[in-house]
């Protein structure tokens, strides 16, 4: 197999390079302005190691991808040419990267889909602020359930973009009608991301001033008792391993996310240890169908004698959680307001198949899937004096579960819409169900 590269230049002869050994002598950069040289050096270091033409092309392409992921260039073009000049070797090559840096200030307007909510997001970004791919972003988001704004500073480590640090200051106001609760969080957080082998880790410190209030005059007294201010200062660690081919409707691969949070040891008046995990496994079976299993769980252990806060507890139920039940309407409640629980588990088993008779195959029809599901879960408070055996027993009693079928629509690689017909079972007194047709939109589904 011979590869040919034909370069035509004014006033010079044609050179035909076959697939033979070459040496990359120079790498040029056109278009660098404020970007500092060091960060560029790391990303293109591999290009110098290429030994033949195919290798040069491949390594140049990889370098281009690496440069683009820094988020500082609008465009990166690669030119490979023979070396000219006095010190040119007969098999020497010059690689030139022609880059266009992003403007100093960019604005953006997006719409975002969260879990059963939508929002408008306006952003102002200062990319590549000091020349080493630092980024300052200001974002304002107005949504159906939440309004927020925030300022964040992001700095990657030169040479390893996946190791990065970000500092955020934010204010978020949320409304939770299932609990008749209104929450305003003003906080500052510092986050450090780093990969270890195949896993991604995040270490974060967060200080939040939380203000809770009743959403309506008719809120239950249990929610009214939680109104007021508190300060949470917590350290958390999260680990993610994701081998799926896509996060929305994956065909294969697995996801494991483990998250722990310890609050109260660096100030604040909220003290707890919180663990939660998320596991998903996908496998493609006959006829383009995919079987998917997922398991979620979590536990909140208050430290000291103060009870847990409604803002820290877990919630269960809804079109993105245990289907067939209303949004977050499972578990402990008081006068119709759901108070959340300190421990939960939830599991789902799904079968996704292409639409029957495959309408629109190869085009629009591929975005849809039919969907058969079985969901189950439980949410309760634990009396931590009792011991693990009693806890497991409590979580195994009164399991809520549901089954059904429906249609799933994939929105790009960002979100998914579901329309299901659900049969909720194991309904306990106090749960609110949504039997029959249920619609859901979001990014994270059980």
């Amino acid at each position: 197999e011979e590869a040919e590269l034909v370069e035509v230049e004014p006033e010079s002869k044609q050179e035909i390079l076959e697939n033979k050994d070459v040496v990359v002598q120079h790498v040029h950069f056109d278009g660098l302005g404020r970007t500092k040289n060091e960060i560029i050096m790391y990303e293109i270091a591999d290009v110098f190691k290429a030994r033949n033409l195919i290798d040069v092309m491949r390594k140049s392409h990889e370098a281009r991808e690496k440069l683009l992921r820094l988020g500082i260039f609008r465009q990166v073009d690669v030119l490979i040419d023979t070396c000219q000049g006095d010190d040119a070797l007969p098999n020497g090559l010059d690689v030139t990267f022609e880059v266009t840096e992003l403007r100093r200030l960019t604005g953006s307007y997006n719409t975002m889909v969260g879990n059963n909510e939508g929002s408008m997001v306006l952003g102002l970004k200062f990319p590549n602020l000091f020349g080493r791919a630092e980024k300052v972003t200001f974002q304002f988001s107005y949504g159906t359930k939440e309004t927020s704004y925030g300022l964040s500073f992001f700095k990657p480590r030169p040479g390893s973009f996946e190791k990065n640090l970000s500092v955020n200051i934010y204010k978020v106001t949320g409304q939770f009608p299932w609990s008749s609760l209104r929450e305003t969080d003003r906080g500052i957080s510092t986050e450090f991301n780093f990969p270890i082998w195949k896993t991604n880790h995040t270490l974060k410190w967060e200080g939040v001033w939380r203000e809770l209030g009743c959403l309506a005059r008719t809120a239950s007294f249990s929610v009214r008792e939680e109104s007021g201010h508190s300060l949470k200062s917590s350290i958390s660690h999260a680990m993610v391993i994701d081998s799926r081919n896509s996060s929305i409707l994956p065909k294969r691969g697995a996801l494991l996310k483990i998250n722990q949070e310890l609050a109260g040891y660096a100030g604040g008046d909220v003290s707890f240890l919180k663990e939660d995990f998320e596991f998903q496994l996908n496998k493609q079976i006959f006829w383009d169908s995919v079987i998917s299993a997922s398991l979620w769980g979590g536990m909140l252990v208050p430290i000291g004698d103060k009870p847990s806060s409604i803002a820290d507890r877990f919630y269960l139920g809804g079109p993105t959680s245990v289907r067939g039940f209303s949004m977050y309407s499972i578990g402990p409640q008081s006068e119709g307001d759901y108070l959340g629980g300190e421990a939960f588990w939830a599991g789902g088993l799904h079968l996704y198949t292409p639409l029957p008779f495959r309408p629109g195959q190869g085009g629009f029809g591929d975005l849809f899937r039919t969907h058969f599901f079985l969901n189950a879960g439980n949410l309760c408070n634990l009396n931590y004096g009792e011991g693990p055996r009693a806890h497991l027993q409590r979580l195994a009693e009164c399991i809520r579960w549901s089954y059904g079928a429906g249609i799933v629509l994939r929105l790009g690689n960002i979100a998914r819409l579901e329309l299901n017909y659900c049969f909720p079972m194991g309904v306990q007194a106090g749960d609110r169900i949504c039997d029959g047709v249920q619609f859901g939109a979001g990014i994270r589904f059980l």
Partner: protein
Amino acid sequence: AEPWPENAALYQQLKEEQILLSDNASSLAVQAFLQMCNLPIRVICRANAEYMSPSGKVPFIHVGNQVVSELGPIVQFVKAKGHSLSDGLDEVQKAEMKAYMELVNNMLLTAELYLQWCDDVTVEEITYPRYGSPYPWPLNRILSYQKQWEVRRKMKAIGWAGKTLEQVLEDVDQCCHALSQRLGTQPYFFNKQPTELDALVFGHLFTILTTQLITDELSEKVKNYSNLTAFCRRIEQQYFEGHEKD
């Protein structure tokens, strides 16, 4: 109407460390009123009582399923349940009672708020430490500043921002003078039976007399009127002796 339940509760801030003069006075007024109506109530102290209240002001009562805050609405609520202290008054007296209650709220209560939040020495040494005491740093500071800003804004709106402490104490003196004149030698403001006005006046005057501030100037203004101090002692003995007292 439902009968008065046994587990009726009144919520206020923490008594020892947190509650301020004005809130203590308002809470005591409601407690006195309920005692005069012979309606039993438990006092529950919570650090977040102010934020639990539907109107943002303490005290509030939790009776059955209802939550009612501040003396005025509580009097109405209790009346709807069939208990009232002012039923025996005629229209003229009722109007007079309302007028004097307005006087106490506009003069005495505002003076208390002024002293707590606008007098720099009191603010630094008493109000800031007490108001933020249940909260960790820096939340204690943030909440105190936020509340002070709110009170100062209200003072500006009613024209008290420009007053000096001496002028405020003068206003307190005038108010006490008016109350003393109206009370005269009677046991209660409307002779034989106490009304919500008596509860309100007792709440404020008793709290002023028994709260230790930077100086005694405020309590001295009240002590000048001997019938008022006797009135406070009388109500304390009649309705609060033998119960949990301040």
